[in-house]
């Protein structure tokens, strides 16, 4: 039989998943505004896909199923003076929506905090239960 999932597993894995999301956001932000010589090689935002890991009714944690590349297209810009410009004098700017990334970052960090709070409460309650009758 599978080891029963504790509250520590649930919140711990959720924190890891949110951290993956935060890392993806950091990569996207770092590459925002980066220039590329062709449409294909331009950086496109990456995004993790969350999926629940269920164990019995109502008991579920979350994991990162896969990381997908978003379909935000790279922006073409005419800049003949740029060293990476192609024959037409065009360059491609990374397909990253910075404001969407910032919003995502704030949400990921809030979710992380929520899970930390859950963990902290659960820990306190368990320690109190251990002390029962002493």
């Amino acid at each position, binding site marked *: 039989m599978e080891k029963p999932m504790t*509250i520590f597993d649930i919140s711990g894995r959720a924190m890891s998943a949110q951290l993956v999301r935060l890392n993806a956001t950091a990569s996207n932000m770092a590459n925002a505004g980066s220039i590329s010589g062709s449409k294909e090689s331009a950086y496109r935002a990456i995004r993790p896909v969350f*999926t*629940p890991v269920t164990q019995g009714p109502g008991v579920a*944690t*979350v994991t990162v199923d896969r990381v997908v590349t978003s379909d935000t297209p790279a922006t073409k810009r005419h800049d003949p003076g740029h060293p990476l410009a192609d024959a037409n004098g065009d360059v491609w700017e990374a397909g990253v929506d910075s404001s969407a990334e910032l919003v995502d970052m704030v949400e990921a960090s809030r979710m992380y905090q929520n*899970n930390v709070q*859950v963990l902290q409460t*659960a820990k306190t309650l368990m320690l109190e239960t251990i002390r029962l009758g002493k």
Partner: protein
Amino acid sequence: MAIEDQLFGIHGKALALRSQRLTLIASNIANASTPGYKAQDIDFDKALAAATRDQGTVAGALEKAMGYRVPLQSSADGNTVEMSTEQTLFAENAVKYRTTLSFLEGRLNTITRALKGE
């Protein structure tokens, strides 16, 4: 009636149920940003009634009282976890867990005193 029920009355099972509910709400909070996740919870009164009935078990009571949360506002990705609701219920459940703990503490103190003959 099991020996622990004689000692602790309703509180033993109440603590087990509170602990289970804590796990359920933690699951909901963990999946707050999972697309399509449906928040689940138990009706605590119903669960406690089922668990304290004759030959009632905590696991059976959980199954009977389980249900899906009805969201106040539906979201586009099909997720029904609402952080404000979950956090409030989690806090409430934690306080009630503590309450049950102090009831148990009282019972234990009484028994210990009786044993020591103070």
